[in-house]
């Protein structure tokens, strides 16, 4: 392990993988992937259905455990860490199917994240409102994300687009250093896509962002670097124009119904 770490320790990269592999009953969803996420960049992973993007994403976010290989965060081996530990290191993910706490109000959703980051989540008898400005900070975040008027709405009753915005607000409440977004535009209408794209543009300041996304317009607009995956392996990597002109990438995508 030490030898691996020496080999790929590189301060320019926040997250790196070394021969990362995940098998499902003999099928390689991700196979020997060496992936690097450059600091302060927006990096998109694309590929046809079944290419292994989501599996790679789930491995990086600790939703899945790898069969083989290593993951490094800031040069440290984090292969065995669990999701909460990653969140505490500042690596926070979003979900493809929007993940809000449906039975909590919009305001309460954001407060939950703030409770964690302000370290009072274990207070068993205290009240939230009187504590370290959590309520005020949540309200400020909601204003910034245009959700202030829905603060008292049950999150489960929000429209789909607003749920995604709320999820982003909750994630950013933790002020993560690395933001991992799983298909942030999935299921959104054109108007919402514009809004969420703008929010991601704003959120990237001072952060590293990794996203898995199907919408090529969004990818072209946001991403500095694009990784193309096919059949569990990395096919190409580089800026949008370079990747889009790559004949292998074109071959992988032709004949498939893809937007």
């Amino acid at each position, binding site marked *: 392990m030490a030898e691996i770490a020496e080999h790929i320790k590189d301060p320019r990269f926040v997250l790196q993988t070394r021969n990362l592999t995940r098998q499902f009953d003999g099928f390689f969803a991700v196979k020997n992937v060496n992936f690097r996420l450059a600091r302060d960049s927006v990096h998109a992973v694309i590929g046809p259905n079944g290419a292994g993007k989501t599996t790679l994403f789930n491995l990086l976010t600790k939703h899945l455990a790898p069969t083989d290989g290593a993951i490094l965060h800031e040069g440290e081996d984090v292969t065995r860490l669990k999701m909460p530990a990653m969140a505490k290191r500042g690596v926070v993910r979003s979900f493809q199917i929007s*993940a809000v706490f449906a039975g909590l109000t919009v305001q309460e959703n954001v407060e939950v994240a703030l409770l964690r980051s302000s370290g009072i989540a274990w207070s068993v008898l205290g009240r939230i409102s009187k504590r370290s400005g959590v309520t005020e900070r949540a309200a400020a975040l909601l204003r910034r994300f245009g959700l202030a008027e829905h603060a008292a709405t049950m999150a489960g009753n929000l429209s789909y687009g607003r749920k995604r915005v709320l999820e982003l607000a909750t994630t950013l409440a933790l002020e993560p250093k690395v933001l991992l977004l799983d298909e942030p535009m999935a299921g959104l209408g054109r108007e919402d896509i514009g809004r969420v794209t703008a929010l991601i543009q704003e959120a990237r300041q001072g952060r590293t962002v990794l996203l898995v996304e199907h919408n090529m317009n969004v990818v072209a607009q946001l991403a500095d670097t694009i990784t193309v995956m096919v059949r569990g392996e990395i096919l190409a990597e580089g800026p949008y124009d370079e990747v889009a002109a790559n004949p292998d990438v074109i071959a992988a995508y032709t004949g498939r119904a893809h937007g």
Partner: protein
Amino acid sequence: MTTIFGVPSAVLFGQLLLGLVNGAFYAMLSLGLAVIFGMMNIVNFAHGAQYMMGAMLAWLLFNFLGIGYWSALVIAPLSVGLMGIAVERFLLRRLYGLDHLYGMLLTFGLALMAQGALSNWFGSSGQPYAIPAELAGGRNLGFMFLPNYRAWVLAASLVVCLGTWYVVERTRLGAYLRAATENPMLVQAFGIRVPRMIMLTYGAGVALAAMAGVLAAPVYQVSPSMGADLLIVVFAVVVIGGMGSIMGSIVTGFLVGLIEGLTKAFYPELSSTVVFLVMAVVLMLRPAGLFGSRLDNAGGPHEAPAEAPSSSPRTQMVLVVTLAASLIVAPLVIYPGFMMKAMIFALFASAFNLIAGYGRLVSFGHAMFLGSAGYVCGHAAKVWGLTPELAILTGTATAALLGLVSGWLAIRRSGIYFAMVTLAFAQMIYFVALQAPFTGGENGLQGVPRGMLFGWIDLSNPVNLYVFVTVIFLGGFVLIMRLVDSPFGRVLRAISNHEARAQSLGFEIDHYKCVAFTLSAALAGLAGSTKAIVTQIASLTDAHWSMSGEVLLMTFLGGVGTLLGPVIGAFVVVAMQNYLAGLGQWVAVIHGLIFAVCVLAFRRGIVGEAAAWWRRRKPHGAGPVPAPVQAASGK
């Protein structure tokens, strides 16, 4: 005579045979559970009752109509299976799409009704059922004596188990079944009538249980309660084996029977608890079970709005003051003994609601905390001579410790598995209470002194006692109210809404769940300890599984996930028991009926429905309303 490790070999082989016979029943019942669960995602809590009905029917057929064993072996499974089909068609079908918990609660209610009604008609004592003449006697194998009937049970159960395995895993019908489990819509699109298939599967699973019952009739005594205790062991078997595979259920069933047999031969004191110990070890080492490939859907989001809103501090103040005032006035019109009993159960139900309502972990074993705290508190007051407050503290601490250990193991599984694991642990504690030297066994721990509170307040004075209980209840209630509203309570609700999201925000969800479970156990223990001081007795009823069912009933009837719901539910149930005490076993039938009605028509409970009604009346004023738990969209 030869001995093996000091045990005569004939005894050892005899116990092993008995273990195998028990294992045959575990295998047949867990197999039926697995088939039903695989198809419908319902844990059939009526499985034990259906097994019992098979045996009872065989007994009735013989005693009233003179119909013998071999005919009963056909008639009983068919009739009980038909009843199962009716249950699926008219009741269970209404619950698809809701949380699996409701199926479990409904079948539990049905089991209570069946068991209560049959006890009422035929008494609860065991009835003998003769071995059929063809299978009487036995043969000497040289190393042991093999009764023919036992050999027949083993052979028959093997045929039934392997036959079921063959149908499900190797035939076209089985392929449709398995496909419909994975994707019912798709199979429906192939032109297969999935609802009918589900109905028949349930019927078949139930018939299997009834057939096991007929096979069991000559081995065990036939009684209305024969299924309930067996079912709990079968649940432990299911947790040990993992519900994933049919073959897994069969192998685990026989294996557990053998382990029990071995224990009976070498260390009989442990034989009734060994299954649960094995379960604990499996949970520690391999939480998905020996044959389970994956853990149950741990992170599924609950889509619909649920849970109570946090009310403002002023509303809470008004609530507590009103509650205190009515409790102070109540003894003027209501018998204080009733009030104290109701308050103790209200505290118990509120403690249960903390974990079931706000943490969405429905425990089916909370009786273990009420019961064990009662015993320890009683023992501390009676034998160690502690003052009541110290005795209560000791009892409460015991329950908390028990909660910490059992919770630490149980939270490795979620949903219905969590319910089964807690039920199994509680059964283990029940057996400990039955056998331990200081509990007084069937008689209970009697003559617990009320003593002098802090050494100077005489609790044998009825006014002092009433005030004492009121203070404890109100204190517990306020504590729970604050807990729910605290940052910790908020995180707990968030976790119950969406585990994976909570993890991704950096919460170690298992720690939160474990602490919540321990707190709930401690408060249940406070109720149990207080009960021992007030009633001056700690008894087995408080540790029995039916007590775990009662607290569930109180909470669901009153309104799960609401502050006042469990309190109101407890008062209603205790009042009902007081006024209906003359009806004997019919009380169980009424309990079961209320369960069924609550689950089918009334899922928010009294307080939840009232709040919903209030909100419909004034659409803008009030906050959100607790809604019934909806299906996890993950599966």
